[in-house]
């Protein structure tokens, strides 16, 4: 009797482990559901929207300009950020941020735009292995304009479908800001 219970428990554990591993592989290599919060991607994605982000593009290195990606925050690995890819490695980005904001030993939290001390219009070249991320809501988004280019390896996945709210179900819109860098051939 005891042996039967033990056998059943072990069998149950075995199935749990197996299906847990299958779930891990699905979430890690196929895609995951993400609940977004914050105003930095309005109007494309509003707060409390649920989106589906697929992982295959990231593992196959197929993320392109204009894609909305979920990435780990460079300053807090427990937080994720949802932004649009504006430029890939090698692209020149024109930005009006402070000229010394990308020095590695400073990286200040960017204060409100009205307090920015200097304007620099020198184009920044995105280094190898990095991407330039910006939110669609440029006025209210902390992105690469404040913390610099983000390593590609921090990207988790590409947002491909909006699932909630139901009246907005479907693919996501193009960038409303027109900031995506054209191909420099």
């Amino acid at each position: 009797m005891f042996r039967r219970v033990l056998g059943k428990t072990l069998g149950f554990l075995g199935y749990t482990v197996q299906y847990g591993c299958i779930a891990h592989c699905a979430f890690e290599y196929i895609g995951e559901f993400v609940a977004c919060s914050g105003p930095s991607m309005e109007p494309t994605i509003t707060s409390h929207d649920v989106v589906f982000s697929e992982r295959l593009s990231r593992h196959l290195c197929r993320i392109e300009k204009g894609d909305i990606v979920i990435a780990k925050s460079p300053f807090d690995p427990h937080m994720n950020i949802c932004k649009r890819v504006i430029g890939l490695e090698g692209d020149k980005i024109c930005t009006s941020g402070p000229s010394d904001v990308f020095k590695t030993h400073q990286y200040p939290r960017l204060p409100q735009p009205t307090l920015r001390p200097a304007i620099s219009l020198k184009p920044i070249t995105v280094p190898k292995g990095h991407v330039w991320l910006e939110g669609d809501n440029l006025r209210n988004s902390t992105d690469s304009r404040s913390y610099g280019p983000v390593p590609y390896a921090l990207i988790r996945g590409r947002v491909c479908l909006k699932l909630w709210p139901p009246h907005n179900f479907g693919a996501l819109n193009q960038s409303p800001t027109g900031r995506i860098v054209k191909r420099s051939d």
Partner: protein
Amino acid sequence: MAQQAGAGRRYVRAFVSGFFVAVPVTVTVLDRFAYVARVEGASMQPSLNPEGNVTGSDVVLLNRWSVRNYQVRRGDIVSVLSPKNPQQKIIKRVIALEGDFIKTLGYKNRYLKVPDGHFWIEGDHHGHSLDSNSFGPALRTPWRARCSVKCCVWCSHGVSCQVSLGLVHGRASHIIWPPNRWQRIEPSIPPERMPLLNWHADATEDEEKD
């Protein structure tokens, strides 16, 4: 004939069900618990690959469970996804954590405060004069020739830099090959590379004094 067809179908079923058990479990173990990696390059000498690639490279066991919350300690040898090439991993020692002030060797800034969410890594082989200063366009190390994208081959080209904590991949806990080098890897920092002070620790000490 019918018996052979039945036996064939049984084998196929057994293979498929075994496949769906073995592959997800293996992938999950490699992603979450432990990884095995061969170290290439000389920038971690003498801790790893003390004789270079002549007698064969060291193989290390990477503990992925201990870094699941991005907790690394100073002196650990860690593998990190390369900020320059997302398909490559580099293996280095952690010298400083966020908030530490350090004196750099050959970096563009002599003194540096490691920003939040980042940590500072260095190779052990400081005499390796081709340490790169930053993420420059070309890393000129002769040992770089074998950096491949195969899953278990790492390249430890000379790099000292700060990396985001989100890039940490695993902590090297043991050397498992060759057998005469079986050992546990202990965290240690050369005394001349210790951080000068820690911003956050000193701030809390001041508060306690008041």
